[in-house]
C-alpha cells in the first residue's frame, strides 16, 4: 500500500509540489545551470577545441590565458589547458558520481539494517560508523591510496569507502522513526520477509533524504578526489584530473599563476553546484521547512 501511495505521488513527479519548490529555489537553479554547462562542456568541448589534451606544443609553453591560440593558456609542457581542463572534468565528475553511487549504496544498506533490527545489530553497526568517522578522511584516504594501485576505479572505491558514514547515519535515524509504523507491522503480519520490508516497504519512504545526502556526497567526493590528486596520490598523469592539474602548480605560482587558478575555479564551480542543488532539494523535499 505504501508502494501504491508512492506511485500516485510520483505519477507526475515533475508537476509535484516538491519539484515546484525546487524550481523556485534560485540557488538550486543556478547550480543546475552551472552543472549543465560544465558537464556539456566536458562531454562535447574536447571535440570542438583545436588542440588535443595530450598534444605538446613546445614553442607555446607557459602561454598565458587569452593570449594566443590556447584559450586558457598552456602548461609547462605546452599542453592546452582548456583541453586538459575538459578531459580532467570528465574524470573528476565521473569519479565523484560513481563514488557517490557506491557510498550511497553502502551507507543505505548499513543504515537500513541498523535501523530496522535495532538492539545489538544497531549498536554494533553504528559504533562501526562512529569509528570510521574518527579517522580524519584525508589521512585515511591517503593511507589507503598509498597502498593500492591508483587507477580511477580504485580511487573511486576508496573515496566511497571513506564517505558512506553520513548517509548511514541519516538512513538509520529515518528507519528508526518509521520502524513502528502501521505499514511495517502490516507487512510483518502478511508474513513478508525482513529483506522485503526493509528494501521494498521502508526504503521508498527514504528516497527524499537519501537524494539530498547523495547530492552533497558528490560535492564531497569531487573535493576529496581533488585533494588526494593534488597531493599526488589520486588520479595519475598522463590521465588529467582537476586535482592533479594543480599538482606542481605551486612551483610556477610566481611565473604562471593561471596553472593554479584555472583548475581551482572548475573544482569550485562543480562543488558549489552540487552544494546548491543539495540545499535546494533539502528545502524542496523536507515538508517541515514548507513555508506555503
Amino acid at each position, binding site marked *: 500500500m505504501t508502494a501504491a501511495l508512492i506511485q500516485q505521488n510520483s505519477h507526475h513527479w515533475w508537476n509535484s509540489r516538491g519539484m515546484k519548490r525546487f524550481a523556485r529555489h534560485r*540557488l538550486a537553479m543556478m547550480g543546475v545551470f552551472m552543472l549543465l554547462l560544465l558537464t556539456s562542456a566536458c562531454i562535447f568541448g574536447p571535440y570542438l577545441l583545436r588542440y588535443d589534451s595530450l598534444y605538446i606544443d613546445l614553442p607555446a609553453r607557459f602561454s598565458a590565458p587569452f593570449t594566443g591560440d590556447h584559450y586558457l593558456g598552456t602548461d609547462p609542457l605546452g599542453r592546452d589547458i582548456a583541453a586538459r581542463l575538459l578531459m580532467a572534468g570528465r574524470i573528476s565528475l565521473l569519479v565523484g558520481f560513481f563514488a557517490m553511487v557506491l557510498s550511497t549504496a553502502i551507507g543505505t544498506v548499513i543504515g537500513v539494517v541498523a535501523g530496522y533490527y535495532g538492539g545489538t545489530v544497531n549498536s554494533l553497526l553504528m*559504533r*562501526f560508523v*562512529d*569509528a*570510521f*568517522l*574518527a*579517522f*580524519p*578522511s*584525508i*589521512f*585515511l584516504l*591517503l*593511507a*589507503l591510496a*598509498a*597502498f*593500492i594501485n591508483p587507477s580511477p576505479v580504485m580511487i573511486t572505491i576508496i573515496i566511497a569507502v571513506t564517505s558512506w558514514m553520513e548517509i548511514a547515519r541519516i538512513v538509520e535515524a529515518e528507519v528508526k522513526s518509521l520502524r513502528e509504523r502501521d505499514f511495517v507491522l502490516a507487512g510483518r503480519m502478511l508474513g513478508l520477509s525482513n529483506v522485503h520490508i526493509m528494501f521494498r516497504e521502508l526504503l521508498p519512504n527514504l528516497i527524499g533524504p537519501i537524494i539530498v545526502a547523495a547530492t552533497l556526497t558528490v*560535492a564531497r567526493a569531487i*573535493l576529496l578526489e*581533488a*585533494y588526494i590528486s*593534488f*597531493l599526488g*596520490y589520486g588520479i595519475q598523469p598522463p590521465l588529467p584530473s582537476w*586535482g592533479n592539474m*594543480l599538482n606542481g*602548480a*605551486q612551483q610556477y*605560482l*610566481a611565473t604562471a*599563476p593561471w596553472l*593554479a*587558478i584555472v*583548475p*581551482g575555479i572548475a*573544482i*569550485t564551480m562543480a*562543488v*558549489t553546484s552540487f*552544494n*546548491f542543488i543539495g*540545499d535546494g532539494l533539502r528545502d524542496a523535499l523536507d515538508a517541515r521547512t514548507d513555508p506555503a
Partner: protein
Amino acid sequence: MAGFLLRRLGQSIALLIIVSMIGFGILHLTPGGPLSQYALTPGMTQETMDRIAEQMGLNRPLPIQYLDWAWRLLQGDWGVSYRDQQPVLSVIGRHMFATFLLMASSTVIAIAVGTWIGIKGATHRYSLFDYTATVGAMVALSIPTFWFGLVGIYIFSLELGWLPAGNMYTIGDGSVLDYLHHLILPSLVLALVNIAIWSRYMRTATLDVINQDFVKTARAKGVSERRILMKHVVGNALLPMITLAGMQLPNLLSGALITETVFTWPGMGRLFLDSLGYNDYPVVMGLLMFSAILVLLGNLIADLVAAAIDPRIRLA
C-alpha cells in the same frame, strides 16, 4: 555525573577498540604487510624473509597478531621509523606542536568570526547580510582548501609581499612576532571552512534561542537588546558549539594536513605526506592511529565539558 562519566568513557574505549581493528586491517593492506621494510634490503632472499616473518610472529593467526599489536600500541611501542630509526611516537611528538599551534589559531579565528556572522545573520534574518553570509558559507565549503591557500600565497606573498609564503619561522629569527607573521596566512586558510560551518550553526542556534520564553521575559523586563544578546542568547547558543567543536576535529585535522602541505608547515600533516613519500609505513600508520585517538579524546572532552555545564546532557 559519575554515571555519565563511566558510560561515556566505556563508549570511548569500545570505539578505540574498533578504531584499532580498522587500523590493523589497513596495516595488513600495505604491500608485503609489515614485512615490506625488509623487502628492499640488498641481498634479501625468500628464506631470510620467511625467517623474519617467523621471528615477528607473522605466521600466527590474525587475532593473536592483532592482540599482540594492540598490546604494544597500549604500551607506547608504536614501532620505529624506517627513515631515521627513531621511535614513531617521538617522531610524532616532535611535529605535534606545529599542528596544534595552527589548529588552535585557526579555531580562535573561526569561532570569533563565525560567531559574529552567525549572530548578525540571525538577528537580521533575510537581510542582505544574512543572504550573503548564507551563500558565502556554501561557496566557502566548496573551495578546495589547498587552492585557497595557493591563491592566498599568490596575492599576499607574491603580489603584495605582505606575508611569508611558507614555513613556520625565518631561520635565524624565530621571535614570537616572526612566528605570528608566518601563522597569519595558513591559519586564515584553514579557518575559512570552519568560519562557514560555525556561522551556519551559530545562526541556527541563535534563532533557536532568540524565540524562547526566557528571552521574551528578559525583553519584557526591559533588559537592553545588547545585554540580552550577549548574556542570554550567546551563552545558550554557544553550548552546543562545544560538541560541534569536538565533531569538527577530524575535518580540522584533514584541513591541517592540506594547509601544512601548501605552506611547508612542519606539523603532523607534513610529516604524514613526507612519510608516505618515503614508504615509511610505521609513521604513516602511527599518524593514522594517533589522529583517530586524538579525535576520540577530543570528542570525549567536548562531551564532558558540555555535560559539566549543562545538566540536561548528563541526565539524558
